């Protein structure tokens, strides 16, 4: 770069300082303050800015805005779908729990019903058995009473007969009625 400038300076010298602007720039020390370059810089700057503005506003920015809004939309949609699915899952869970509770209640009901039925059957059977038992008992009692009555009768008969025999054996005679009465009295005790 330095050699270039030296070359340019030499050229200027050769031209006899024809290009005053360049010389002025070098003597001023700051090329930025050389007014000769201003129109050129400003012209090309404006061209560059307009070109850049057109590129950005026509192509780049709408495109990027489109991409960003599309992504935003997609993410929002996906989130909504996820929320939807989550709600559905919760619903399914609730339905499952409900079904489970229903089944459990049904099972309990069936068990209770069955138990009640069995209990009723059992009660009936017990009642029947009780009735049968008491009937049997009554019959037995009656039979026992009959047996006891017949036994007493037999004893009396035997006692009467024995008494009559005894009386006869002792050589006395007695009336049957008297003997029966005596036996009757004795048995009464």
């Amino acid at each position: 770069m330095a050699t270039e400038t030296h070359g340019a300076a030499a050229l200027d010298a050769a031209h006899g300082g024809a290009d005053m602007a360049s010389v002025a720039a070098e003597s001023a020390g700051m090329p930025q303050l050389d007014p000769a370059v201003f129109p050129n810089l400003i012209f090309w700057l404006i061209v560059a800015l307009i070109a850049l503005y057109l590129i950005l506003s026509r192509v780049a920015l709408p495109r990027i805005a489109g991409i960003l809004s599309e992504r935003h939309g997609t993410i929002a949609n996906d989130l909504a779908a996820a929320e939807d699915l989550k709600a559905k899952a919760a619903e399914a869970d609730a339905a499952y729990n409900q079904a489970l509770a229903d089944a459990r209640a049904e099972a309990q009901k069936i068990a209770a019903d069955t138990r009640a039925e069995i209990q009723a059957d059992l009660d009936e059977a017990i009642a029947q058995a009780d009735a049968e038992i008491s009937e049997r008992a009554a019959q037995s009692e009656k039979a026992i009473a009959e047996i006891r009555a017949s036994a007493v009768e037999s004893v009396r008969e035997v006692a009467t007969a024995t008494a009559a025999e005894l009386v006869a054996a002792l050589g006395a005679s007695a009336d049957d009625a008297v003997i029966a009465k005596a036996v009757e009295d004795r048995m009464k005790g």
Partner: protein
Amino acid sequence: MATDAHTEGSGLSFHPMDQFIVKPIFGGDEFSWYTPTNATLWMAIGILAVVALLVLPTARRALVPTRGQSIAELAYVFVHKMIEDVTGKDGLKYFPYIMTLFMFIVISNFLGLIPMAFTPTSHVAVTGVLALAVFLTVTVLGFVLNGTKFLGLFWVASAPLALRPILAIIELISYFVRPITHSVRLGGNMMAGHAVIKVFAGFAQVAAVSPIAIAGVVAIYGLEVMVAFIQAYVFTILTCVYLKDALHPSH
């Protein structure tokens, strides 16, 4: 500066400002306002770089972005959010305009860091036009959108009445100084950094100090990479701040 350097020593020669000389690219010394110069070349390269950065990687419009597309989206969102944060939603109308300024400055600054490159933004003529464009746009926009209410910008209603005329003068001066500070801040930063690198590079000619000089070049270069972005950012955010004044002139 350059002349001082020329006279300094016989063997040692500094030309830190030569990098800023505008010269025709097709040879010759004389040029008029339309001659393609190295400035033209580097502005064109800048535009191509913007196309390569923002247009080409987004061609596929991928839902899941590629690396290039991510960078393009990042640049877009960066400026978009800056405008929205500073000026509010109604400033977004001027997004392409501000994006153009930002991309032009940031690309020029970074391309200028390439050795032997020319930095358009190191010229106050360039930054001056950029700043004046902002200043004029904002001023015209302020009057078109708000009418005479725009003058309320200079009349600080929240200050005590006695202070207001004085504040109005200060506000008025600061308003008209804006294009100067706006342009000189950017141009000066770019010029100074590049010149300092060249001065350090010049010292590298002396064998004794060349390691220090080269380390200095590396360090300043790192700093300049930062400055290249920060100055573009500062220019853009100040543009947003000025735009906010035009949109909402009340303090």
